[in-house]
């Protein structure tokens, strides 16, 4: 009897095992249809409307950029190249700034309608409608008029409001006028996207798991997609993302900087691309009444930046672990305005090289006392300076970020050896960004600015006197005026000159310590040809129509 029972149990186990293992044995990644590329991403879009606040995320752009195509798009060198436009947008007049552009004759929506200037006009009106939760109206609010004639558009800006990044603004993806009319824009495209002007169109969205785009056969304005489908799989845990990549469940991913990348680099089945992006890490210094009085002294700030070995921090975070191929590919950031790969980039902050003895001499020369005579690793003497007290500063940043924690540890040790103390004040991102940063109740704050190719034009907001996001309360009237001028200088060459001049003035004040540009990574299995890293918000799917698969 007992034997029979055991046989029954064994039989049941064998049945279950065969049900799972049997078919599973044939369930290889190749089961996916040929011409399908699976992209793994750690964040899922909330909506497919990337103009409104909840859709304002990189993950949304990855999907929508290939569905709602732009007039021009940023290529891998962050240069605007015409896409739905029949050529670059033209500067007709400087004051009032007037620009014109035209959509290609074969630019059409997937439902057969033409992409025309009416779509641009409808998009402009939608963005300016105060009822909708539009993330940013910057530049759009400077437009005085939009004149449309079929596929041709002329945009005139308000007098004296020559919006500098006009070329990027008019190149924005036009939304379909015929689909938006009479709709609540906050709810539009929340679950699906029923029309396309790009090489792919929306197919399905299994929330929490995957989103599927299929080839838009009606797309004639550019090269047709080579693959049938692009599938976005959402895997929030980075280690799991790497496991999924190795086991062929996903083929392309843009991971956060992780040590697993080093292993993947050694694996011949994968291509790893890395390069600096537009997000940059920096330490801001508080000039307001709630900040440390010592930091209002320029010599203290100069000693601070001189005492930090920024190259070593970059080395420890990215180069030594092997995350980036070499130090050359991730230079120390020497400008808060431009990125190292941008043409107008000038190493304005390079004058503050790492020199611990110099930092000590600066403080000693200003009558500070109690600090070390020479930099030593085990120093515990902290300087006190006349009228401003002990050089012990609160260092605020987000908790739970390993790279920031490591940056703090290295900077803390370096500064301690010259007699400057950093006291950690870490907190959750929501708290430090939502409450602490705007309150000005901090001494030094390390965080990342999420920039883009047009960010330099709007530097006034960050570094101008009274700028919206000048949380440092820093003000240098001369530099501020120049930043304001640059904001309304449409000529990019002239604008870059003004910005570099303004930054050279700002550098002497040391309101901030530029650290490094956060590198971006793009990994693809060798079975997928074509992915190229793009440092802009255009993202890795910017050329998805050129991708091909060998499966």
């Amino acid at each position, binding site marked *: *009897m007992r034997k029979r029972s055991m046989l029954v149990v064994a039989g049941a186990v064998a049945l279950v095992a065969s049900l799972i293992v049997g078919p599973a044995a044939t369930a290889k990644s190749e089961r996916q249809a040929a011409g399908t590329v699976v992209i793994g991403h750690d964040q899922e879009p909330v909506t497919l409307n990337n103009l409104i606040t909840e859709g304002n995320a990189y993950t949304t752009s990855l999907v929508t950029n290939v569905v709602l195509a732009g007039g021009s798009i940023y290529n891998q060198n962050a240069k605007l190249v015409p896409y739905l436009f029949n050529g670059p947008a033209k500067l007709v007049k400087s004051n009032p700034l007037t620009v014109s552009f035209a959509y290609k004759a074969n630019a059409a929506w997937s439902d057969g309608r033409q992409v025309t200037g009416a779509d641009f006009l409808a998009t402009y009106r939608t963005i300016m409608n105060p009822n909708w939760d539009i*993330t940013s109206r910057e530049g759009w609010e400077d437009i005085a008029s939009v004149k449309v004639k079929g596929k041709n558009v002329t945009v005139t800006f308000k007098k004296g409001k020559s919006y500098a990044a006009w070329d990027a603004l008019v190149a924005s993806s036009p939304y379909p006028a015929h689909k938006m009319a009479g709709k609540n824009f906050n709810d539009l495209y929340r679950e699906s996207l029923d029309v396309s002007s790009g090489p792919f169109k929306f197919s399905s969205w299994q929330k929490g798991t995957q989103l599927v785009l299929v080839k838009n056969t009606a797309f004639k304005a550019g090269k047709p997609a080579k693959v049938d489908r692009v599938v976005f799989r959402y895997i929030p*845990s980075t280690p799991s993302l790497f496991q*999924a990549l190795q086991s062929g*469940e996903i083929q392309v991913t843009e991971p956060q900087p992780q040590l697993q990348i080093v292993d993947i680099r050694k694996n011949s089945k994968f291509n790893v691309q890395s390069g600096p992006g537009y997000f940059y890490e920096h330490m801001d210094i508080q000039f307001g009444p709630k900040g440390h009085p010592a930091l209002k002294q320029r010599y203290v700030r100069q000693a601070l930046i001189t005492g930090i070995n920024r190259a070593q921090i970059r080395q420890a975070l990215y180069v030594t672990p092997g995350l980036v191929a070499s130090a050359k590919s991730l230079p120390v950031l020497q400008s808060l305005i431009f990125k190292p790969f941008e043409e107008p980039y000038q190493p304005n902050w390079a004058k503050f090289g790492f020199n611990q003895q110099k930092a000590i001499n600066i403080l000693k020369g200003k009558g500070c006392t109690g600090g070390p005579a020479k930099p030593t690793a085990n120093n515990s003497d902290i300087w006190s300076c006349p009228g401003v007290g002990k050089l012990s500063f609160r260092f605020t940043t987000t908790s739970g970020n390993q790279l920031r924690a490591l940056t703090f540890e290295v900077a803390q040790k370096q500064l301690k050896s010259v007699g400057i103390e950093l006291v950690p004040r870490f907190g959750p*991102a929501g708290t430090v960004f939502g409450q602490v940063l705007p309150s000005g109740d901090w001494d030094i704050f390390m965080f990342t600015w999420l920039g883009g190719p047009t960010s330099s034009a709007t530097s006034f907001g960050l570094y101008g006197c009274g700028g919206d996001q000048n949380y440092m309360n820093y003000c240098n009237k001369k530099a501020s005026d120049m930043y304001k001028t640059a904001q309304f200088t449409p000529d990019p060459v002239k604008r870059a000159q003004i910005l570099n001049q303004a930054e050279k003035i700002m550098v002497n004040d040391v309101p901030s310590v530029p650290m490094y540009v956060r590198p971006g990574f793009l990994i693809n299995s060798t079975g997928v040809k074509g992915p190229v890293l793009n440092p802009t918000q255009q993202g890795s799917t910017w050329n998805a129509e050129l991708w091909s698969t060998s499966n």
Partner: protein
Amino acid sequence: MLIYIVRRLLYSVVVLIAASFIIFSFVSLSNDPLAFLKMQPNASEQTIENITKRKHLDQSIPVQYVYWAKDAITNQFGTTTIGNRPILPDLTRVMGHTLQLVIAAEILAILVAVIIGVYSALRQYSMFDYTATTFSFVGLATPVFWLALMLQVLFVNIYLWFDVRIFYTASLSGVDPGSGLHFVLDRAQHLGLPIIVLMAASVATYSRYMRASMLEVVNSDYVRTARAKGVSERGVTMRHAFRNALIPLVTIVALNFGGLLGGVVVTETVFALDGMGLYFVTQLQLGDPYPVMAWLMVTATLVIVFNLIADIAYGFLDPRVRYD
């Protein structure tokens, strides 16, 4: 019994209200749901103002709580702060996924644990008993995230070495899950590893309870009496001992089940399963009190209900227990 249930439910309402206010206050105080938006260069002041007004973010916490309570009761948990998106559809979806995972894991865990527990008790101090005890402690001591990651690594390597995919490492279903039996198999391959992870801890706990309970019963007077009456050993074990030994396990399972339905945060995060736990973590990171509160109310209600079910079941199964 009815009075007891009504009394417990009334107490529960008070607990729910108190818990909801405390959690709402903590979430609202510790996070600004507009923080990320405010960090965007050149974010629209108009939009920030619109959202602030819509969700009364400029009001005091108690006032915000009253607005939330009204929204939760009259508008199915209301809408998210950013985006004004209805919360209930998302919550219903993730609840369904968690149910699939937890029910499968618990049924299998109970089956395995009961077999191990009963056999260990009947063969007390045998090699099997010692082995089961050792593995139970290993199961209890193993961190869930570690086991999950190790299983992922193991099955990825099995795939790489043998080109055979037994289980997937992430997500609820494949790119093309198909339908019918194909869908069921695809789901089984995706839920396989998370189920094993959940089972590990549950089997360890349940088997210890089952063993202890069974040992207590097999040595009791009525079992000895049954044997003396000439009942077969199988009859004694199954009819007299096993049924009575199940009573404590039922209580433990019911209590555990209620908690698990709130989401298995680590397991769901590691395996990218769109369930209650992952939903909670994601919303908490966004700092939006509305979805967090919706999750809390559902979870708290489930815990209360399953606690009540455990108590009632105990009364039904054990005639000695009476509720006044």
